[in-house]
């Protein structure tokens, strides 16, 4: 299943809310009231819609998003694992729960060149730290670790911010 054809329904008002908060939440004592004023809605409607979007996963969470480079986490390695398909969901749940893994996905293998089906992004202050953390993942997987690799990023070739799909 490569894609989701239909997500939860959002309407024009949701889109306006998304656009209005793309840069961030207003920094004032009553931010949802401020959005309401800007969009000509009631504050209750803004809060109800924000809660609904949190519930259906359109908003993952409302939170501070740190710049990890600025915080000293300058190394990142994409670790890829060959895990038996029968246990992939359990294995993914265990690896994702580790506090140094920022993304964890089951992705398709491309045999014979690419036997890896579990991806876990690992962040650290340097490569040694990443290697240690990858070793921890290997221990967590135990016999399910049928081989792994770490792909270090050497250069960002392109990076664009979030854009609302029209």
């Amino acid at each position: 299943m490569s894609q989701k054809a239909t997500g939860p329904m959002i309407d024009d008002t949701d889109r306006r809310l998304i656009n209005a908060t793309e840069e961030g939440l207003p920094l004032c004592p009553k931010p949802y009231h401020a959005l309401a004023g800007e969009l000509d809605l009631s504050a209750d409607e803004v809060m109800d819609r924000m809660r609904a979007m949190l519930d259906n996963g359109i908003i993952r969470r409302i939170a501070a998003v740190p710049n990890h480079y600025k915080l000293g986490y300058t190394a990142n390695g994409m670790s890829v694992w060959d895990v038996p398909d029968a246990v992939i969901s359990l294995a993914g749940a265990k690896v994702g729960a580790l506090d140094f893994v920022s993304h964890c996905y089951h992705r398709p293998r491309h045999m014979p060149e690419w036997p890896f089906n579990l991806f876990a992004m690992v962040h650290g202050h340097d490569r040694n730290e990443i290697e240690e953390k990858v070793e921890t993942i290997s221990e967590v997987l135990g016999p399910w670790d049928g081989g792994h690799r770490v792909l270090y990023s050497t250069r960002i070739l392109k990076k664009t911010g979030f854009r609302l799909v029209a």
Partner: protein
Amino acid sequence: MDDMDRRIINELQDGFPVTERPYAEAAKQLQMDEDELIERIGKLCKDGTLNRFGPMFNAENLGGAVTLAAIRAPENRFDEITDMVNAHPEVSQNYAREDDLNMWFVIATETPGRLSKVIAEIEYETGLEVFDMPKIEEFYVGLRFAV
């Protein structure tokens, strides 16, 4: 960045309430004033310690389609291939990685059908096979950058 800033960053990565006075609530947890919390978040955004503060959207749940793709770009054509891949507005991120598969990029389109077209276009333009690796399952992650 002082201790108070660190506590704010650690605490507010987890979530922020949807209530009438959310900053006042969060400030109470952090044992500081509402005004001070607002001011410090603004400062942390301005100096780049925080990329942003607000809702984190899940693009896929907005009806679009996303995949992770990789290609083997020969070293002597690496820059040329970078330009070809990056020229597609649907390519939102692209990273050089140390591997046989040395270029990894994210393709995000408004519709699922468009995704396969972009992949076919890149294969045609570069003459290289694109390894399409869409997520099959996403696992919950507990990562917080402790500071």
